[in-house]
């Protein structure tokens, strides 16, 4: 579906802001009930709360209960959005998500903000680099990781219209809008090819805030004489395996890029798909098997090798492996 333009191309805004705005925007039309765990000003569900105070409930610092309350609301016909930081929504409440939401396949939407290391100064305890892995492994769970505010907005609507459990991942850091809403259609489960040519030597498959540096890497590779395809995977599950298979077949090498552990997230999902259809080298840019640390978000991105330069290096290495 296409939406009337709200965000300007290049505008810097965090996806969590777009999440709060989207809840408010679509809250009038849909029977949303929003739950938060004492973080509404950070998760931005406070934006919804201001408009619809009767449908916003604070669960206090009790995420396990919040997720199962959301399950009960869904069982009674509501469309609940339960929000907290990714660390607590997917981490602390994992078993509630698995048993009370996933197993009965209830229509619960988990809006998890502050994902990845761009949480920044709060450090490792709050930087969740494992949520995609945790949510992806639950049968029937849809997992969405938007790349910018425009995609985040569209993803919220897609999640509302989808009947079943969804995990939506949002970030704290302001990132540029890279999608022109006048010319953008979000389709759940469908990857988006951002640039391609017949001579592509490698495909960069990126998700979330790593899509923008993937595009920058593509330009840097051009100056090295390398033609790279760029694919945005906003839906980690179900994965657009057809698009991945085509990239493997046509370009013969893949680099994945995500603000998440290289274990269990996009890189793993892509590698699994590629192994099953057309084995080619798959190199993964992401947080290595380590915890994060405190620091300004932007500095951390370069410290942990989550930038265009790292993608370029991995792309060249992947091509050498062909």
């Amino acid at each position, binding site marked *: 579906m296409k939406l009337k333009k709200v965000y300007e191309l290049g505008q810097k805004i965090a996806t969590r802001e777009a999440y709060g705005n989207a809840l408010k925007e679509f809250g009038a039309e849909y029977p949303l*009930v929003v739950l938060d765990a004492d973080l509404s000003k950070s998760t931005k569900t406070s934006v919804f709360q201001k408009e619809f105070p*009767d*449908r916003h*409930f604070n*669960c*206090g610092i*009790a995420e*396990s*209960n919040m*997720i*199962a*309350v*959301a*399950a*009960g*609301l*869904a*069982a*009674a*016909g*509501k469309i*609940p959005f339960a929000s907290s930081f990714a660390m607590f929504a997917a981490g602390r409440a994992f*078993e*509630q998500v698995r*048993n*009370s939401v996933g*197993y*009965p*396949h209830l229509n619960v939407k988990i809006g998890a903000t502050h994902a990845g290391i761009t949480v920044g100064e709060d450090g490792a305890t709050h930087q969740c680099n494992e949520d995609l892995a945790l949510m992806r492994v639950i049968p029937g769970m849809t997992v969405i990781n938007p790349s910018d505010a425009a995609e985040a907005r569209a993803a919220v609507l897609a999640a509302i219209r989808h009947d079943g459990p969804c995990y939506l991942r949002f970030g704290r850091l302001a990132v540029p809008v890279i999608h022109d809403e006048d010319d953008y259609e979000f389709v759940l489960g469908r990857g988006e090819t951002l640039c391609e040519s017949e001579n592509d030597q490698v495909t960069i498959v990126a998700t979330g805030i790593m899509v923008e540096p993937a595009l920058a890497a593509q330009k840097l590779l051009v100056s090295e004489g390398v033609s790279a395809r760029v694919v945005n995977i906003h839906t980690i599950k179900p994965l657009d395996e057809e698009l991945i298979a085509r990239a493997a077949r046509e370009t013969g090498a893949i680099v994945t890029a995500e603000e998440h552990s290289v274990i269990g997230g996009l890189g793993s999902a892509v590698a699994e798909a590629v192994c099953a259809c057309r084995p080619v080298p798959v190199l993964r840019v992401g947080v290595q098997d380590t915890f994060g640390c405190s620091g300004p978000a932007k500095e951390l991105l370069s410290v942990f090798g989550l930038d265009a330069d790292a993608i370029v290096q991995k792309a060249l290495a992947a091509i050498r492996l062909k």
Partner: protein
Amino acid sequence: MTQQELAKLHNLATDIRIGALTCVHSASSGHPGGSLSIADLLAYLYFRELRIDPKNPRDPDRDRLVLSKGHTCPALYAALAYRGYFDPKLLNTFRHVDSILQGHPDMKHIPGVDMSAGSLGQGVSAACGMALAAKIDHKDYRVYAIMGDGEQEEGEVWEAAMFAAHHKLNNLCVIVDFNGLQIDGKITEVLNPTPLDEKYRAFGFNVISINGHDFQEMERAFAAAKESDKPTMILAKCVKGKGVSFMEDRYEWHGTAPNDEQYTAAVRELNDARM
């Protein structure tokens, strides 16, 4: 309640007890002790208290019951079967491959099951969500949740208790099967959660203590719960294994199936006690 009504409930509870034992015996697996413990409560709830229609199990205006102590679903399945949700013959398929009667309640496949449960502490939270939905929609249905006393050791139970009281869910009635035993032994020896009445009162609940095998006390308690402006906790003193002398008050029967001989003896004893 007339003597006739009391006798009818007693005999329905006997059906539920035999049905629960049939489940566990057919599977050679399951939880008889806690199932027998809550059989009288389920008989009262499903045959006298709940506003439900087995022909329309998904009626949005129905009362809900969440068996948070999901491992005692043999009793729940027997109650649902005898209430008309499905053929009691299915009780013989409990925990078998291809049966709808899963080892713990499964709302996706079993008519009448309002919430999948079994991982302790979660069902009561889901019941809070259902009660909240009723408040949002200005509907008058009520939500019941049955918990174990050992289950009170789960932290989530107290998160849910805070939530229910804070959001004034007086349409929620939780029942604690206070039989004093859990898998590893006496609750007071494993990790003592008592005094439960004082704790729930401090959490903002309307607390009513009853004998969990006395239908007249149930009638008074459930009626009082409806008058409360707070969520209600009914602390039901029960006997684990109730009705089968060799199972009564023995934690060894928490999760052990009776063999053929024990099953036959148990069914005979229960039938002999019919009114």
